[in-house]
């Protein structure tokens, strides 16, 4: 029996898996007739999800949790049975500032850049000016990762600098107009700023947390329950899309598909750079290989680790100043649904981890871990400051953060 599913998305490279699942017929093979609904703001993607225009959505991970907890609007339980990808964002500075932070054409080291940036921030404050950072949404991994890095470098995000929201398509404009000094955004928008000569890529978020959770597939919990079989079929289609996405043989073709007007409506060359983890950091420079820049498939990257949801919850507590409660922590943890992922992929070739939660940031090298199915090897998943996140002690972690 054929099921129909509508999935909302924002035109970003990391909307790739649903797009490819449709375009390569992977969804069709699973008996899913997939419709994709493009929007231009997370608010609209979320509205369509909550009011039933779509069944599922490509969503910034923290927004799934804050919607469940009722931050900003009445609470509605959201479920995340699949992670659409890890990282894939960069921090692009105004060119003159970037020149003071890194050697042109080279990616910075987060610690070194942090030290230099802290000096510039102090200098600016002494002149009565605060640097401004643009992120795409308050409840985004961009915001949490940028703040994590700034805070670890001794820069207080709400005190020493200003944080503001900028819509991704306007990031390059905002840099050019001097409305912001730096942006943290997904691709292709950093590359667009670089190509326009208004900014330089200084860091990528993979350098802040090597395995940082980024976009997720979000459904309203009642919809997931009602359309459980179709959702599991969609997960199998998305996994195939992930495998296709990371295969270099498909990069040109997939970049061309994503560039089409109904999807990103952008330049296939810039999109290919992100897919290939090879970005131009400075206009006129050479492509630089950034390992694990986008991490869409390997090491069960799509598995919704409960510990990821809990990490996001700690960052929400940290930056929004709301009190920690075990009840909210439990609700946040329940947003990620490894049980659905497992049930969708049990009996396939896909490896399934033995655990559903892990200490994040604890692995410096390749490590074999127990698996429910297949073989699981995890690689470097460190935070740049060497801290690790133990999901059994959220409050202890919050106390240790700067």
């Amino acid at each position, binding site marked *: 029996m054929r099921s129909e599913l509508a999935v909302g998305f924002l035109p970003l490279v990391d909307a790739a898996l649903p797009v490819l699942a449709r375009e390569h017929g992977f969804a069709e093979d699973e008996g899913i007739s997939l419709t994709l609904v493009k929007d231009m*703001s*997370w608010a*609209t993607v979320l*509205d369509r999800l909550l009011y*039933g225009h779509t069944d599922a959505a490509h969503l910034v991970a923290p927004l799934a949790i804050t919607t469940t907890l009722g931050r900003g609007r009445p609470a509605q339980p959201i479920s995340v049975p699949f992670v659409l990808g890890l990282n894939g964002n960069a921090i692009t500075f105004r060119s003159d500032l970037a020149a003071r932070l890194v050697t042109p054409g080279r990616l910075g080291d987060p610690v070194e850049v942090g030290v230099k940036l802290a000096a510039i921030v102090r200098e600016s404050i002494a002149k009565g000016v605060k640097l401004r950072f643009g992120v795409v949404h*308050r409840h985004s991994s961009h915001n949490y990762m940028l703040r994590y890095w700034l805070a670890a470098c001794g820069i207080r995000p709400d005190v020493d600098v200003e944080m503001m929201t900028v819509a991704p398509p306007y990031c390059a404009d905002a840099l050019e107009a001097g409305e912001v000094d730096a942006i943290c955004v997904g691709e292709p928008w950093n590359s667009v700023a670089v190509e326009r000569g208004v900014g330089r890529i200084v860091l990528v978020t993979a350098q802040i947390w090597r395995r940082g959770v980024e976009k997720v597939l979000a459904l309203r919990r009642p919809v997931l329950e009602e359309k459980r079989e179709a959702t599991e079929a969609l997960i199998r289609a998305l996994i195939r899309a992930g495998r296709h996405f990371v295969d270099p043989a498909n990069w040109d073709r997939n970049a061309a598909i994503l560039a089409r007007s109904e999807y990103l409506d952008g330049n296939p060359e810039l999109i290919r750079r992100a897919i290939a983890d090879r970005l131009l950091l400075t206009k006129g420079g050479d492509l630089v290989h950034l390992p694990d820049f986008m991490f869409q498939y390997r090491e069960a990257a799509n598995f919704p680790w409960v510990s990821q949801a809990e990490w996001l919850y700690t960052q929400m507590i940290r930056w929004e100043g709301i009190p920690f409660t075990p009840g909210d922590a439990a609700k946040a943890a329940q947003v990620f649904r490894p049980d659905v992922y497992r049930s969708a992929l049990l009996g396939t070739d896909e490896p399934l981890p033995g655990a559903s939660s892990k200490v994040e940031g604890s692995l410096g090298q390749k490590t074999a871990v127990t698996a429910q199915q297949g073989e699981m090897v995890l690689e470097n998943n460190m935070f740049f400051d060497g801290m690790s996140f133990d999901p059994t002690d959220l409050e202890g972690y919050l106390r240790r953060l700067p």
Partner: protein
Amino acid sequence: MQWPVPPTGRQSPENSHLWLPRHTLPDYRAEAGLSGQARRAVLPAAGQLPSADIAVHKRIMRIAIVDESATRAAVIQEGLAKRDDCEIFVVTERRGLVARISEIAPDIVLIDLGNPSRDVLEEYFTVSRALARPIAMFVDESDEESITASIDAGVSSYVVDGLAPHRIRPILDLAVKRFNAFSRLQSDLAEAKGKLAERETVDQAKRILMDSRGLGEPQAYAELRKTAMNQGKRIVEIAEAVVTAHHLLGGK
């Protein structure tokens, strides 16, 4: 797009507290007379006076229409202009949007769902201390139908907290109607354009047949129609095939 820049410049204290935690702000919901069941996403801005809620009932409502399509904004504006209880402000420029909204100090903000600045605007409504009164999203759960209608139409609205529902409702209904009318207008236009393009293609195909086979116009059309009927296709599809083939064979 941009946080309101206070006249004193970038270092103003307002700007350094933009992301204040919600729980540190006083809850004006009770003072605004909202019951626990009126579950709007109420996010009070600091420094706001509860008495403003009462004043809202008496004075003219300020309505901001945020739309990058100037034509659609004009269509909405025209509809609302007939009412004598509102003053309309149209914002089509995205640059300085938040500063402009802050100047207008609207009671109701209407913004199209396709506008990339929605997240920026919501962020501003959530935390801005520059606004004298809290803005709530119009997501009262008791009025699911009205929200659904508005999302279907492609418009979202933000309403100052405490504004009486009987004042909001007609404005939103009108906005929804106007948005729907505009969409219909657009699809009619697209259809008309499509028909025009079809007629041009058929004319072109006729000319090709007339030139290459020495047919008169009625015969050329009859040929197209006959072929279309035989193949179970539309005339325009056959005409397109003729034009394409002609181009491929080096015709002009």
